[in-house]
């Protein structure tokens, strides 16, 4: 993974000192809370319902074992013994004290981490495919480009006060989008053109929130050396013309829609023409310098384990077999597997991990891999380089840690925002709904039979739980003072991106869990075969049978 050099380290150290000064000036009254707010936000420090919340950047979701141990340390020393992995591949701590934050930042800087631009109206952490670098179907590792974007966007002087927050995602797998690039302000897809040259497809204007929009293609093919100049052109057009009169209309998706994609593209291209051959052009030297940190680790020369992986999935030890079938994926290197550690079971809020768990995961990443851990946007963790032969050993260890739930991409692998339990914006609780669904489907044995389906829950229309792109989405609303929930079906974050559609009237917490079960029972009844996924069946059947199933008895 990328290692800071003296330049990178200086920036992070100086940032920690700068923020310490800002906190002191806030405490002395030299700066007002209004003036301090964007400063703390650009350091990931939010004011939540009960306390400050600190969000720490995990660039493209990749952590070393040492960095994971530092999260455990922070959880223990400055928080209440746990951290929360987010849908943006970051980690949040919900109970730090303002006066401790400079010390936390200094601790983070000592392991090459920071909280820069994890909030505020600026360019946020660049996200990517959680299987980057190890996926079998990958065309090119996107992480060197993510790192280049991280550096370009860190303290970019022109784009620190944008109309609104700005998120960029990169995928290196044209065939499957595991990074939801079409729902980001900018999506970057590494592709090959008809001539066999590598480059990028650039999309812009995607997003969730109050107005979900699928990103549109701004440029069908961009040679690699122009990546940063093209991003800068898009950002400049957005900074100049994005709306600043209404925060709910300030994202780039609104600008692209109101301007029209053709005219928006003309503006971007006109800007880019003037800068594309300037100093921002990427050099081969720089790309090589960054890419060398992402070369494959020293894998052992092992025979292919595809057959043994398939056999393990059918193991007579059903717990193990089910876990292999659901949480283990094929690896590009023979003899290795990608393992997903589920942070989802009924007892904890989705994405939470305790200090003990984090320390243990760090240890496992060293014993079963090269000391690397990846955070997924589904709020799970990945050990990317596990020897297939060692899966039984790893499984036994994960069971002891409560992290062997065999539910990756299954109905209980729920994405969920903090909801009314923590968040000042929420209209309804979301964690208890997630817990209820987990419990409901833990009890019945057909979790596996249901197969791949995503459930995503948001406690308000700001959509932090990504409910629009869940195959099943749940949105908490306030219905004349009562918490109520809308059910949406048909969302998909991937290459066949689609936005979920509300199925019918909102319902109570108890009813919505019943409704999810009705929808899934209906799917099991109507699917053509076990191979037809829920989303495919929904696309074939449309909402009617599901609507009937949910509302017929009400």
């Amino acid at each position, binding site marked *: 993974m990328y290692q800071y050099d003296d330049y990178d380290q200086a920036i992070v150290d*100086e940032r920690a000192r700068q923020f310490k000064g800002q906190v002191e*000036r806030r405490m002395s009254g030299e700066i007002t809370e209004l003036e301090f707010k964007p400063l703390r936000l650009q350091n990931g420090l939010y004011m939540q319902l009960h306390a400050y919340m600190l969000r720490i950047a995990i660039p493209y979701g990749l952590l070393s074992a040492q960095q994971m141990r530092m999260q455990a340390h922070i959880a223990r020393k400055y928080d209440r013994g746990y951290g929360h992995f987010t849908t943006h591949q970051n980690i949040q701590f919900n109970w730090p004290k303002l006066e401790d934050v400079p010390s936390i930042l200094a601790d983070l800087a000592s392991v090459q981490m920071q909280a820069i631009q994890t909030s505020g109206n600026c360019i946020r952490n660049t996200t990517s495919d959680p299987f980057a670098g190890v996926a079998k179907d990958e065309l090119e590792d996107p992480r060197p480009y993510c790192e280049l974007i991280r550096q370009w966007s860190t303290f970019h002087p*022109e784009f620190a006060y*944008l109309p609104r927050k700005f998120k960029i995602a990169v995928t290196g797998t044209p065939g499957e989008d595991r990074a939801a690039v079409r729902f980001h302000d900018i999506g970057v897809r590494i592709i090959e053109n008809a001539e066999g040259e590598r480059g990028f497809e650039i999309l812009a204007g995607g997003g969730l929130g109050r107005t979900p929009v699928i990103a549109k293609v701004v440029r069908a093919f961009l040679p690699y050396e122009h990546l940063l100049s093209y991003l800068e052109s898009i950002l400049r057009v957005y900074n100049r013309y994005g709306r600043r009169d209404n925060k709910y209309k300030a994202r780039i998706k609104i600008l692209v829609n109101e301007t029209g994609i053709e005219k928006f593209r003309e503006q971007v291209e006109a800007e880019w023409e003037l800068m594309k051959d300037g100093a921002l052009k990427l050099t081969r030297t720089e790309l090589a310098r960054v890419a060398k940190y992402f070369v494959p680790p020293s894998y052992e020369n092992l025979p292919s384990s595809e057959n043994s992986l398939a056999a393990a999935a059918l193991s007579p030890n059903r717990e193990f077999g089910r876990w292999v079938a659901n949480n283990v994926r094929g690896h590009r290197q023979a003899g290795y597997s990608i393992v997903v550690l589920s942070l989802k079971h009924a007892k904890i809020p989705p994405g939470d991990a305790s200090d003990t768990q984090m320390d243990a995961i760090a240890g496992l990443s060293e014993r079963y891999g090269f000391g690397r851990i990846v955070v997924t946007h589904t709020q799970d963790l990945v050990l990317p380089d596990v020897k297939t032969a060692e899966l039984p050993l790893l499984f036994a260890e994960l069971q002891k840690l409560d992290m062997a739930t065999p539910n990756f991409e299954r109905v209980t692998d729920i994405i969920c925002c903090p909801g009314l339990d923590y968040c000042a914006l929420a209209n309804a609780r979301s964690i208890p709904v997630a817990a209820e669904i987990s419990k409901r489907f833990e009890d019945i044995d057909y979790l596996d039979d249901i197969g791949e389906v995503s459930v995503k829950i948001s406690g308000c229309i700001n959509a932090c739980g990504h409910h629009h792109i869940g195959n099943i989405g749940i949105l908490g609303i306030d219905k004349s003072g009562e918490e109520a929930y809308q059910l949406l079906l048909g969302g998909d974050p991937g290459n066949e991106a689609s936005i979920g559609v509300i199925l019918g009237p909102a319902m109570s917490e108890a009813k919505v869990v019943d409704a999810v079960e009705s929808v899934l029972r209906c799917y099991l009844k109507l699917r053509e075969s076990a191979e037809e996924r829920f989303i495919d069946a929904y696309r074939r059947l449309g909402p009617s049978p599901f609507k009937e199933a949910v509302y017929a008895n009400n």
Partner: protein
Amino acid sequence: MPTAVSARVLSRKLSMQIIRDQKIVDDTYTTFSDDAPLPAAGNIIVSSARFAKERAQLLARPEGTFGVRLKSDEDPAILAADILALSLIAVEFPKFGDGRGYTTGRLLRERYGFRGELRAVGNVLRDQMFYMQRCGFNAFELTPGKSLESALGAFGEFSVTYQAAADDPRPLYRRRAS
């Protein structure tokens, strides 16, 4: 942004202090509203609207004595043709969270070749000045009541920057010692 100013001298008296080139200095310019009569001599700042209307008279003033003030939503291209005649351009930051002025600054410096005093005016605070400086601003009229001495600290906070900007046309990757 409404200009709630009826006084003939818009913002500052001559004794007002600003930061210029990282030093606290007396402001040698006076800003005039659009209907105020202009003195025959002295350094003045007028709005872009007034400049458009009285361009000939203004360009006839002695070299190096007048500047134009741009609103945050104004395109700096409107000054491109006269860029060499202007000794100062002031860019408004109506709220410190309105970041359009950063782009305006870079365009004036990097695209239109402005070499005179580029001044940030309006809600100008210490914690944005580092970015402003990187975007080409070399002068700062701070929000009234803010300490200029403290604001000088903004310039020394970072020794390394990643991006190409008005203060250095090379991104770090063209400067990194390999």
